[in-house]
């Protein structure tokens, strides 16, 4: 049981780390601000989400697990709002490629 959980944990954390790789690659390679924003939100949602998922089996108790989920929910709220705000700022300033 514990070994199975460890494997699940390792898989989820590795997948999360992969999404940070993808987010960085997108931020560096995509051609303009709005597509880069798209890449950034992937790291926010999936990268951090999968890392949290992978750490949940290690949580010391329900309160610790709740805190981990709270971190993810806050990051979701921040990520979604930041995407909106930055996009509206890009629109206001006009594209600078």
């Amino acid at each position, binding site marked *: 049981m514990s070994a199975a959980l460890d494997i699940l944990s390792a898989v989820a954390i590795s997948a999360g780390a992969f999404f940070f790789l993808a987010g960085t690659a997108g931020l560096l390679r995509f051609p303009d601000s709005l597509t880069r924003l798209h890449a950034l939100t992937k790291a926010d949602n999936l990268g951090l989400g999968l890392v949290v998922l992978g750490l949940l089996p290690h949580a010391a108790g329900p309160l610790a697990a709740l805190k981990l989920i709270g971190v993810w929910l806050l990051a979701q709220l921040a990520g979604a*709002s930041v995407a909106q705000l930055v996009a509206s700022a890009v629109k206001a300033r006009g594209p600078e490629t």
Partner: protein
Amino acid sequence: MTPDLAIDIGLAVLVLGVAAWTTVVRESFAAVVGFVTYGLLLALAWVRLHAVDVALTEAAIGGGVTGALLLAAAARLGPAEDRTPGDRPGAAPRLLAAVLCALVSAGLGAIVLLPPDPAPTLAPAAVASLPKTGLGNPVTAVLLAYRAWDTFLEKAVLVLALLGVWSLAPDALWGGRPGPAYRAQRDGALALLARVLPPAGIVMGVYMLWTGADEPGGAFPAGTILAAMWILVMRAGLADAPAVGRRSLRVALVAGAVVFLAVGLSGLATAGAFLAYPVRFAKPLIVLIEAPLTFSIAVTLGLLAAGPPERGLPR
């Protein structure tokens, strides 16, 4: 190389790199963004140095309110500073400055590499007296019991800085509302954020204050988090900044220091010294000080970020 060492080296190199870039980059806005990332990285560095209390404060200040203050300032100042950058010193003085600053760094580096042995520490003394305070977190014990005098004066410095900011207002605007009038956001991302985040932030602030007695936390990170929430609500136009002449605002600013002083003076009667606590009541008294202190810190930091009065008294 162990993973631990690799992370530390990577972090130290990143901090130095971001700092160097912040120093040399041309645009002011880019420099401010560099500085915000510097704050985030420092919070990670404090975790690596096993100073979680400091990391919490740095995360709340460096990752939150400093960014809000400096990015707003860069939006107003940046374009003008970039247009007319002023007189940069020539190549020779710059080189001289670089050499002298490198010497300062080298001297400090030498001190780091040649530490006194054994390293001086007050940790055993701090732990030994911990039971008398009723606390479990030695950093909170230092802040509010062993060196409470420092913390009291520090609170006074915060209020003095705020008075300094206010005194920059033109005479006609004295007593008015700080900062520009932000239009109230009815919908959109900012309105959502300013409605959903503060309840979470208030819970977080109270938790941080409460847990600070025994675990990393305490009045400073708690007050900073609450201040950040207030700044967000003000920026979204959901609650206007209060006129600085308001009596209730003045009371909120000094409440922390006044309670601190009152408890300190009562120590003369109950424990024989200013700011001494009777052992049986140490913890309740410390919590009694910390709660209004947190509130006052939150109000002070929020108003510091809002700036001097820019609008006249409400007619």
